[in-house]
């Protein structure tokens, strides 16, 4: 079953714009992770934020976590054509394995 639900399902922006994707989940978590997937191939880990953290940065990525609302957002600043991919949030709680959402398909138009 899917734990997270990403919003929007698809997003199309111009190169240089910022892209924001949201993720909502249902149960308490240990941490929330964001992954990127290019063209239906393997996933690449982007960033992990723990349940006691509220914001985290990595390069052009900024992730926020609101455990009271059970939601997270991923912001990609100054987007590039190479950022075109599907983005998934995934959560862990206790000793459970990663539970993924359905993903957001991002298209960055040059």
């Amino acid at each position: 079953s899917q734990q997270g639900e990403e919003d929007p399902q698809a997003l199309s922006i111009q190169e240089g714009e910022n892209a924001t994707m949201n993720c909502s989940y249902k149960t308490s978590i240990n941490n929330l992770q964001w992954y990127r997937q290019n063209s239906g191939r393997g996933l690449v880990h982007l960033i992990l934020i723990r349940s006691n953290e509220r914001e985290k940065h990595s390069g052009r990525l900024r992730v926020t976590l609101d455990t009271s609302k059970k939601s997270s957002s991923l912001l990609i600043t100054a987007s590039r054509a190479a950022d075109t991919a599907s983005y998934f949030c995934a959560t862990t709680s206790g000793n459970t394995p990663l539970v993924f959402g359905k993903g957001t398909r991002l298209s960055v138009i040059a």
Partner: protein
Amino acid sequence: DAGVTQSPTHLIKTRGQHVTLRCSPISGHKSVSWYQQVLGQGPQFIFQYYEKEERGRGNFPDRFSARQFPNYSSELNVNALLLGDSALYLCASSLPSRDEQFFGPGTRLTVL
């Protein structure tokens, strides 16, 4: 260092057949997990193995089985294939104390 490798890349089978997918983790990673990703969906957890023992199993029928070898590589076996088993099968490895997982490129299975 080499990343997670999977073989084969693509596979076409017919209903009722059996398939074996293989995965080699990153050197030093003792945990291997398998996921099924149907088109348009996120990956769904199938199995996790650590030190050759099953640590977790997702909501998949008994037709799905897996094992981990002494060198930490792993096989996923699926018997009596159904059309609905058509998917991208992803293998991921991780360190025991870390939650982030490193994924292989996947095996695209098509069942006709």
